[in-house]
């Protein structure tokens, strides 16, 4: 049975061919998502790098209590290492040129998510919070079974949604700082010009932390997962249960 179906199966959909255990490659990340994801990497990097050159000129944010300062953004060594000192003007020139590309890529991504209805795989639903807790417990080896998931697990859905929201706030607060008069009263949304500056900075730190976590998780997930964001496909060996679902769905 299995052998004959190999010989007779068409490359296109043949109900017989899905029964057996031959691995196939299934599309998980559409081409548009892949391009926009990877284009975003250097753009985000240039924006943060040029943004830090701007921040250097007035680096007032720090953690501490009273006069005791625990951590200042950023220690001088950071500025020296990355050559961020006395580069305010160049930083602004890069920021206000590449910013457009960052925004265009983001807008294209938002339109694509809406038009392809891909957003449904990302935006969490009511059960995502409790499932995300189970994902974390599973990741920490405190729970044997991972909760059910679609394209992304519940923790991914929540963190991707948070990071996309942060990116939106980042861009809007950036415009509020960039053109506070032209876009008045936009800065009021952030408590004024200095409020927008603080939120813009905070969102940047948030995005940086996400990038760190994201890279760690990608490394943990392994090569096949990384490759899927380059090629679009994952190799899957169909389990009987998945086939059952397929049958039920029809």
């Amino acid at each position, binding site marked *: 049975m299995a052998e004959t179906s190999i010989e007779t199966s068409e*490359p296109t959909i043949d109900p017989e061919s899905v029964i057996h255990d031959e*691995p*196939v*490659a*299934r*599309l*998980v990340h559409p081409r548009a998502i892949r391009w926009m994801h*990877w284009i975003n990497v*250097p753009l985000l990097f240039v924006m943060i790098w040029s943004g830090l050159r*701007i*921040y250097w*000129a*007035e680096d*007032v944010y720090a953690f501490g209590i009273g006069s005791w300062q625990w951590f200042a953004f950023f220690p001088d060594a950071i500025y020296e290492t990355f050559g961020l000192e006395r580069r*305010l*003007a*160049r930083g*602004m*020139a*890069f920021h*206000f*040129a590449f910013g*457009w590309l960052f925004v265009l890529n983001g807008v294209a991504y938002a339109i694509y998510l809406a038009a392809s209805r891909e957003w449904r*795989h990302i935006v969490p639903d009511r*059960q995502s919070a409790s499932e995300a807790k189970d994902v974390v417990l599973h990741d920490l080896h405190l729970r044997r079974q991972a*909760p*059910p*998931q*679609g*394209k992304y697990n519940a923790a991914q859905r929540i963190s991707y949604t948070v990071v996309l929201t942060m990116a939106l706030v980042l861009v809007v607060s950036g415009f509020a700082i960039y*053109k*506070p*008069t*032209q876009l*008045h*009263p936009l800065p009021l949304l952030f408590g*004024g*010009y*200095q409020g927008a*500056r603080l939120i813009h900075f905070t969102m940047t730190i948030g995005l940086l932390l996400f990038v760190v976590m994201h890279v760690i998780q990608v490394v943990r997930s392994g090569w096949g997962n990384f*490759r899927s964001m*380059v*090629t*679009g*496909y994952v*190799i899957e060996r169909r389990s009987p*249960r*998945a086939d059952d*679902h*397929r049958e*039920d*769905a029809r």
Partner: protein
Amino acid sequence: MTPDPSERERELRAGLDDAPTIPVDEFRRRSRRSFLVGAASVGAAALGWNWLQAQPDVGGIPKPLRDTLELNEALWSRLSEQRSAPEFPRSKATPIRMNGRIGIRNEIDLDAWTVRVEGPDGGLLDQLDITAFEALPQREMIIEHKCIEGWSSIVHWGGVRFRDFHERYAARLGDVPYVSLETPDGLYYVGWDMASILHPQTMLVLRQGDEPLDQDHGAPLRLATPNKYGIKCLKRIGVIRYSRERPADYWAERSYDWYAGL
């Protein structure tokens, strides 16, 4: 009651199993191609980055970046021209910090100060002392002064709108597109387009709060606006020159945007 996990899984995976599949050998071919395209893209991005850095500088930054700053200004001035910044109640104003001494390093004799007003042909239109500015309609504005470094402060300025001062010469000058302002020693100079300097919030300042300006803040006469960064707000004005060409600008020569508009 918790939902049946398999039902939940089915809900989560809706549509996913209908995504197209390809045989594994076809996948290997495409995979190779994807990685090659990826590597080529990384190479192209690196080349583009190097190309950008290698472009000739205009005012201290590569030409494409300078062009983008100009394009940005064209875009924003088209989108919304002559909008005004918010003004604040008097109680919000604080003394503004002192930030930069270029052009005002040495104290001057305020009683001996005059300002030269020059026409676009270089001719002297006027040589005025402070009484000429005291005679014009006096205004107050409490605005947020924004430094290009990132700090800002709400400050109470008193003085004369530039547009009221300009009235004296408007008929004689006709259509002149730019104004240049310089410190008496010529070390600091800024260029303004006419639309921006005639904005009702562009002020020739004589007072901070109710006090006359001190020398640190540009006594006896400085420029102020909430609609451009502080780098455009020249202290201790020595020359006001109308110009047909875009005037030189101290900070635009040092990599900053010529307009520095907000």
